[in-house]
């Protein structure tokens, strides 16, 4: 008799390289850490172990290439062989932190003045000792609603270290704080993390820069938590430049309190298969979350973006604009949902996914969605996919611009609408340069 009913997956498929023995070694190596931290890790590992891998019937993984997220063949956070500090972004910064395989490899502190005013830019392990309360309150404190609860648990179980940024009430940090997360070595699994806490009426810009050493196959399973207190303003930019052999899973959580404003821009420029989940919770009136993303999909790479804008209070605003430029045989998936709670009247929510098709063989998938339980709201969403007009292409070529340079020009033209929303011209320029380098590589 042929078996038909559900068959439980073999354990190896569930945990891949991240076996109980490997986890035990990880805990042993970190046995001096805070007991609370180790307890969380154990609980997270148990969740990871028990949760199923995504399956074809999961709506949250619709269109994703599931074979690409298999967890075999990686070694969690080996010590970076060279431990070379990866190149930083070409922008003047207020402070920097660099990690290779989750271990601090370099840093430059905040100015004495900012330090005096209480600004903390440190590692999570430092923060565990000095600011345990803040960590307990904000570290991965939000629900995983976008399909990767299992991988978020893996992140929490194996996280080695990460960035902790705390800006006290009323303090403004003008220049960006730059965090570089490096991965080194074939098969390396890294768990980068950046936690940003901006207290009431503070202001800060944080840049996460993800880079691989060389072109080896790696696994990056990262998270970032952004918390904007009453009237605070966070600008967050992430440049994902992992190697083109890397599997990248990244989870973002943004909490926006009363009259706070968070602008986040995610650049997806690397990885073989990259999934990004972004959750914005507008928790109090006047909160505003601006969610931006730019993706260059080339080769046979896949970029999978899942977003959720939850309006939990009246008079809140969210504005999402995700733009993908697709070349060659690449694929993109965008699935976005706006949720408006029953008492979140006067919500103003916008969601737009635009795809520029630079190749006939590329494929973009868009799944925009709305779930509105209040009656006095303004919610708009839309998705478009457009090809390069052959007349535009001829126009560029007729000026002597070769096809590759023409594509670059058109991609920048397409991205400009998003890049120009960044207030800092220096950051805008640094990101442009980074994008150009990635296009030309």
């Amino acid at each position, binding site marked *: 008799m042929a078996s038909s009913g559900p068959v439980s997956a073999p354990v190896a498929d569930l945990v891949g390289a991240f076996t109980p023995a490997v986890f035990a070694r990880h805990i042993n190596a970190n046995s001096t850490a805070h007991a609370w931290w180790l307890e969380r890790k154990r609980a997270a590992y148990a969740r990871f172990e028990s949760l199923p891998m995504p399956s074809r019937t999961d709506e949250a993984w619709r269109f994703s290439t599931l074979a690409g997220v298999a967890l075999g063949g990686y070694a969690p956070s080996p010590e970076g062989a060279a431990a070379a500090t990866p190149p930083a972004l070409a922008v003047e910064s207020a402070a920097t932190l660099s990690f290779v395989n989750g271990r601090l490899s370099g840093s430059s502190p905040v100015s004495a003045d900012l330090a005096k005013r209480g600004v903390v830019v440190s590692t999570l392990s430092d923060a565990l000792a000095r600011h345990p309360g803040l960590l307990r309150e904000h570290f991965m404190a939000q629900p995983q609603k976008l399909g990767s609860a299992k991988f978020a648990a893996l992140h929490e179980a194996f996280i080695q270290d990460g960035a902790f940024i705390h800006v006290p009430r009323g303090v403004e940090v003008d220049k960006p704080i730059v965090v570089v997360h490096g991965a080194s070595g074939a098969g390396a699994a890294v768990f980068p993390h950046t936690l940003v806490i901006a207290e009431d009426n503070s202001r800060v810009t944080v840049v996460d820069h993800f880079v691989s050493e060389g072109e080896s196959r790696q696994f990056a399973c990262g998270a970032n938590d952004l918390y904007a207190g009453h009237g605070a303003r966070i600008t967050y930019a992430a440049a994902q430049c992992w190697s083109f052999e890397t599997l990248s899973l990244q989870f973002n959580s943004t909490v926006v309190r009363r009259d706070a404003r968070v602008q986040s821009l995610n650049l997806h420029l690397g990885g073989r298969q990259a999934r990004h989940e972004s959750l914005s919770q507008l928790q109090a009136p006047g909160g505003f979350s601006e969610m931006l993303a730019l993706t260059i999909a080339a080769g046979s790479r896949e970029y999978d973006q899942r977003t959720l804008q939850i309006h939990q209070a009246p008079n809140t605003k969210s504005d999402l604009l995700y733009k993908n430029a697709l070349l060659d045989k690449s694929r993109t998936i965008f699935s976005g949902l706006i949720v408006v709670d029953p008492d979140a009247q006067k919500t103003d929510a916008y969601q737009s996914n635009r795809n520029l098709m630079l190749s006939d063989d590329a494929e973009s998938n868009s799944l925009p969605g709305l779930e509105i339980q209040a009656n006095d709201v303004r919610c708009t969403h839309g998705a478009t996919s457009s090809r390069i007009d052959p007349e*535009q292409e001829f*126009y560029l070529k*007729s000026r002597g611009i070769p096809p590759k340079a023409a594509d670059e020009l058109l991609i920048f033209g397409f991205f400009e609408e998003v890049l120009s929303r960044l207030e800092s011209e220096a950051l805008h320029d640094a990101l442009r340069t980074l994008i150009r380098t990635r296009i030309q590589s």
Partner: protein
Amino acid sequence: MSSLEIKNLHVSTGDKEIVKGVTLTINTGEIHAVMGPNGTGKSTMAKAIAGHPDYIITEGDVLIDGKSILEKESDERAREGIFLAFQYPSEIPGVSIANFLRAAIQARMAEGEEIDASAYYKRLYQKMDLLKIDRKFTARAVNEGFSGGEKKRSEILQMAMLEPRFALMDETDSGLDIDALRIVSDGVNSLRGPNLGILLITHYQRLLSYIVPDHVHVMIDGRIVKSGDKSLALELEARGYDWVKHEFANA
């Protein structure tokens, strides 16, 4: 001196033959006007020479200094010195004129060579002043929201910056009021010189009182049926195209 030779050129779009055997040689330093009623193949000829993929050259050849350019892609032809001033230039959203021209100039430089940004802007502003174009223009996206006159001035600005050997100007006068026509013509006249050959496509004599051609050709039904000097244009203005058509039919 360079020459652009058009030899027995036949061009089709789809199944339809539009240009039916045009032979014409333009030397640098000369301005050739090609006149004719709408739909006689003037624009088709220009686009085919520039390498537009929709226009298929079925017979004949186009040569620069004796070498055929037909095997080359349109961007290579442009770098060889062909410039097409479009009748209806495309809009390129998000790409500023300054960046667009920079990319075009960069494409003409040797690998590894970089544009000197300050010299570039100096030259750009100089040409813009000449064409009475506001400097704020450089930050605007190429042709996006431009008026008809701005589009044509932008075409001439590009021509001035890219310094082609042969410019094919497709109905550059269409949609221009008299002031814009004067500015555009002044611009073209300032570029006139021993290193530039111009093929000026128009169906009005009006333009030719501002840009005085060395040679005038009349194109009807895909063929050049009559050639002469600038007086031919005046004659056409006075008598219309019918007498040429008639003469051609009787030939």
